[in-house]
């Protein structure tokens, strides 16, 4: 049975800075060498108020023996705001995983440390002894950071050793950020108004912040103030005044930390901490020259063999020491052994004219350096050393001197050309990545749902050369995750896991990652402000950590936007559903109101009546009523504009007022009833409810003699005359109720007379305006015709025939349909 490949977790705050990137590179190189998989979790500084530190800490909560087998913890940054003892307690949660700390000694955890004291002692000693500074300020790191405090302690010790007074006014408290370096300058110069001639900072970032702040004030570096940092980050080498610093072997720390973690996995018990040396790197910010070669031999020294070869043989060790020193100072990336080859090649060629190996060797070395992204221009410093020593031997020989200068000139041209190309290539590469990130950032803005965001992410990571990526969003807190992106160029299996819901502490669902080869993943938390959205695993492609941080920023924001849209869509759908339910209930209530007050089984002396109302689901508001009294009967028909509960209530008001008025005085004139109905509706609806509603309404009073008195605007009345067996159309002059407060001027009572056998048909616009599928209305003519065709049948038969004709005509009922049929028997 094959043994499972070990998985190591690296806890780091983020990858934008060189310090973290270099340690990560060391851990990764060692992981590759040992064939183990690496997960770099970028969860921010614990409880940090900066860089969203605390907001991203949640990613550390995913760590468990189910996703990693051992941990490397970058305590040097992670614990900056909690201190070593609380960090050690925090790390207890990861037991029983074997752990190794980098940068800070944690109780009970093997740690890889650097000798802060020696490097810092050398740096401050250099300022005092070599340059003669006396008023040296110090910018401390975070108070709880053990390394920062070590460096501060050494500062005080060195001052004491040199008999210099300690002045607390020259000490400020920083937080390892460049901004705190600048703030320290403001404090000392503007607030305390204290003079200083040199500054030592507990790290390079703060030193660079101070350097910028001083230069902005017109202070010259190093002529007016010298500055020294700690760490040796790349930015320091390219500062306006290249930063003198204390170099700590960052990638070596990473490699050793992984070794210690693996050793524990193998069962070894490690109790001792490993301490690595630091070294002073002299550049210009302290007052030195960055290309300073070792001091050349005094002119009066008599060379026993003052030829070039003789000089070389005499001084080879010194030359190589000088070369090594300039490499150290300018570019630690340069392989010293290849520098030695170049030195030897130079002297071989000078000694033997037939040998041509110097320039080809140099060309090959600088191209190799360019390929790996090294500092090619730094090779100029090696040429400077070569020239210094070569000129010792050829000072008096013009021809020989010209030959040496010629070769070295060619060498400088080769280096210059290679450096230019390397810079151009690097710039193009950065521009390429920057373009991809910018375009994908723009694309994210237009991605309005999660799947669109994922498509953009996938396109983005393919173009960035990232081989595989997985993105999960939390469901129900952090315990459960749903995989929304799976992309893997080497595993067809990955896609099948998309959409899978799984315990987040697994990072990815079981059997998702291929087991064919080791991989390194950057695990980035996804969050927006204080909301934890999920996390993503990006396989290490480009080594610039800033790319992964930018992706995290972009994707976090885009994902939040998409989730908001999704929430909005769901909320809208939920509200629409609720609104539909509410409307449905309202409709049901309105329908109950409408139908429950309809007259039932009305017996009218001397008349037959049949009526029906079919409420529509969308629009409704039909009204009809039959109110028999002694010697007469009232009929009402109308339609309230609109639909829903309000319409039903208005109809109920009309019904109540008509009933009350006619019951009070059955012989009241219809127009007077309408006038009061209008007043009631206007007051209640218009004035009190602030609504614009109106209704068509015709009221008819029919007495036993067949006299019909009617008033109010509604549909035309159809009357089938038994005598002529033809249908007449009677208009209903008047105006609507509820529209304006006073309609008296528009109201008139009209009269008609019914003979025995005459049939009167009342209806609403749901009948005449019923539409077929071609949007043709049923129409008044069709109604007349259908009415005439059955008018001599029973009132029920007439009602049912008209209703069936309307129904068969109608494609979709959208309005109430009401039919009232009355036959006057006499």
């Amino acid at each position, binding site marked *: 049975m094959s043994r499972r490949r070990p998985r190591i977790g690296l806890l780091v705050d983020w990858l934008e800075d060189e310090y973290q990137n270099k340690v990560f590179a060391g851990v990764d190189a060692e992981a590759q060498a040992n064939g183990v998989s690496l997960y770099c979790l970028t969860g921010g500084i614990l409880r940090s108020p900066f860089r969203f530190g605390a907001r991203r800490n949640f990613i550390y909560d995913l760590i468990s023996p189910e996703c990693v087998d051992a941990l490397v913890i970058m305590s040097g940054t992670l614990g900056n705001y909690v201190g070593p003892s609380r960090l050690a307690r925090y790390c207890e949660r990861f037991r029983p995983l074997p752990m190794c700390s980098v940068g800070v000694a944690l109780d009970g955890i093997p740690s890889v440390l650097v000798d802060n004291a020696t490097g810092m002692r050398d740096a401050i000693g250099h300022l005092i002894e070599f340059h003669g500074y006396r008023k040296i300020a110090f910018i401390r790191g975070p108070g709880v950071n053990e390394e920062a405090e070590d460096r501060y302690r050494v500062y005080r010790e060195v001052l004491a050793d040199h008999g210099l007074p300690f002045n607390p006014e020259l000490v400020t408290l920083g937080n390892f950020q460049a901004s705190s370096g600048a703030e320290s300058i403001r404090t000392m110069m503007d607030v305390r108004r204290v003079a200083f001639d040199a500054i030592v900072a507990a790290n390079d970032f703060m030193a660079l912040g101070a350097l910028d702040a001083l230069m902005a004030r017109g202070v010259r570096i190093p002529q007016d103030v010298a500055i020294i940092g700690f760490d040796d980050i790349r930015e320091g080498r390219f500062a306006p005044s290249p930063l003198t610093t204390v170099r700590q072997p960052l990638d070596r720390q990473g490699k050793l930390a992984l070794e210690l973690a693996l050793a524990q996995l193998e069962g070894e018990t490690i109790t001792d901490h490993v301490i690595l040396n630091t070294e002073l790197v002299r550049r210009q910010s302290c007052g030195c020259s960055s290309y300073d070669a070792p001091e050349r031999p005094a002119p009066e020294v008599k060379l026993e063999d003052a030829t070039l070869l003789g000089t070389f043989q005499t001084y080879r060790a010194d030359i190589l020491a000088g070369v090594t020193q300039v490499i150290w100072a300018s570019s630690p990336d340069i392989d010293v052994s290849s520098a030695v080859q170049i030195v030897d090649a130079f002297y071989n060629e000078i000694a033997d004219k037939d040998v041509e190996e110097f320039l080809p060797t140099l060309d090959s070395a600088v191209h190799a350096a360019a390929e790996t992204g090294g500092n090619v221009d730094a090779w100029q410093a090696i040429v400077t050393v070569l020239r210094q020593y070569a000129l010792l031997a050829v000072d008096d020989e013009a021809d020989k001197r010209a030959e040496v200068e010629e070769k070295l000139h060619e060498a400088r041209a080769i280096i210059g050309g290679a450096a230019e190309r390397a810079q151009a290539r690097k710039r193009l590469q950065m521009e390429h990545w920057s373009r991809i990130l910018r375009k994908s950032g723009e694309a994210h803005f237009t991605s309005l749902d999660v799947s669109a965001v994922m498509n953009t992410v996938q396109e983005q990571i393919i173009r960035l050369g990232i081989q595989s990526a997985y993105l999960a969003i939390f469901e129900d807190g952090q315990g459960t995750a749903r995989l929304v992106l799976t992309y893997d160029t080497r595993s067809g299996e990955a896609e099948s896991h998309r959409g899978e819901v799984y315990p987040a502490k697994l990072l990815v669902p079981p059997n998702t990652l291929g087991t064919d080869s080791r991989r390194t993943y950057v695990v980035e938390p996804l969050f927006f402000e204080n909301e934890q959205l999920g996390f993503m695993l990006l396989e290490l492609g480009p080594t610039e950590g800033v790319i992964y941080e930018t992706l995290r920023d972009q994707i976090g924001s885009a994902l939040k936007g998409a989730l908001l849209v999704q929430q909005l869509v769901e909320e809208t759908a939920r509200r629409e559903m609720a609104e539909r339910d509410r409307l449905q209930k309202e409709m049901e209530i309105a329908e109950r109101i409408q139908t429950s007050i309809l007259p039932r089984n009305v017996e009218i002396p001397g008349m037959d009546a049949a009526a029906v109302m079919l409420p529509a689901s969308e629009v409704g508001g039909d009204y009809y009523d039959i109110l028999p009294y002694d010697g007469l009967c009232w009929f009402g028909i109308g339609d309230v*504009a609109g639909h829903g509960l309000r319409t039903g209530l208005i109809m109920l008001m009309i019904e109540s007022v008509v009933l009350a008025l006619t019951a009070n005085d059955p012989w009241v004139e219809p127009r007077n009833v309408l006038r009061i109905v209008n007043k009631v509706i206007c007051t209640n609806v218009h004035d009190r409810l602030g609504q614009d509603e109106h209704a068509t309404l015709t009221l008819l009073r029919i007495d036993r003699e067949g006299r019909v008195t009617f008033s109010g605007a509604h549909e035309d009345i159809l009357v089938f005359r038994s005598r002529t067996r033809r249908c007449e159309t009677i208009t209903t002059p008047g105006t*609507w109720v509820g529209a304006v407060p006073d309609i008296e*001027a528009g109201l008139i009572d009209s009269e008609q007379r019914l003979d025995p056998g005459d049939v009167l048909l009342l209806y609403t616009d749901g009948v005449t305006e019923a539409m077929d599928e071609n949007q043709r209305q049923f129409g*008044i003519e069709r109604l007349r015709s259908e009415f005439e065709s059955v008018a001599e049948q029973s009132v029920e038969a007439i009602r049912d025939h008209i209703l069936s004709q309307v129904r068969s005509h109608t494609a979709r009922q959208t309005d109430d349909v009401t039919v009232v049929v009355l036959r006057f028997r006499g």
Partner: protein
Amino acid sequence: MSELELAEIQEAEFVLRPRLDGRCLHLVLSGSADGQVESILIQFFRRLHAEALRLGVREVVVDLQRLDFMNSSCFKGFIVWIDAASSAHVLDRYRIRLRSNTSFHWQVRSLDALRRMAPSIIDVESIAEAVP
């Protein structure tokens, strides 16, 4: 004189074109006004009175001769407008001339009821044009 600030309504089945001609505002309605245009039409009529006052028009001519149908909910817009116009101060009052087509039964019925709301400012001109 200011320009008319009433936008044309152009829907699939319904068109309303406003036009200002001196102190006369013309509205030409055509098609069919049903639930699809109910809210937009009511909004239009709500703005119409304010716009008429702003422009100081003396007459609004509403041409309905090509308007096949208007349901009762859309008609509510007309009523709201007529109510506002009839309540206006006497100096601001303007006449409303409704050009109707008696071929459309609904117009005969509804426009008469509308006229009766405010007979002092509304005239209905009826023509019998064959429904196209």
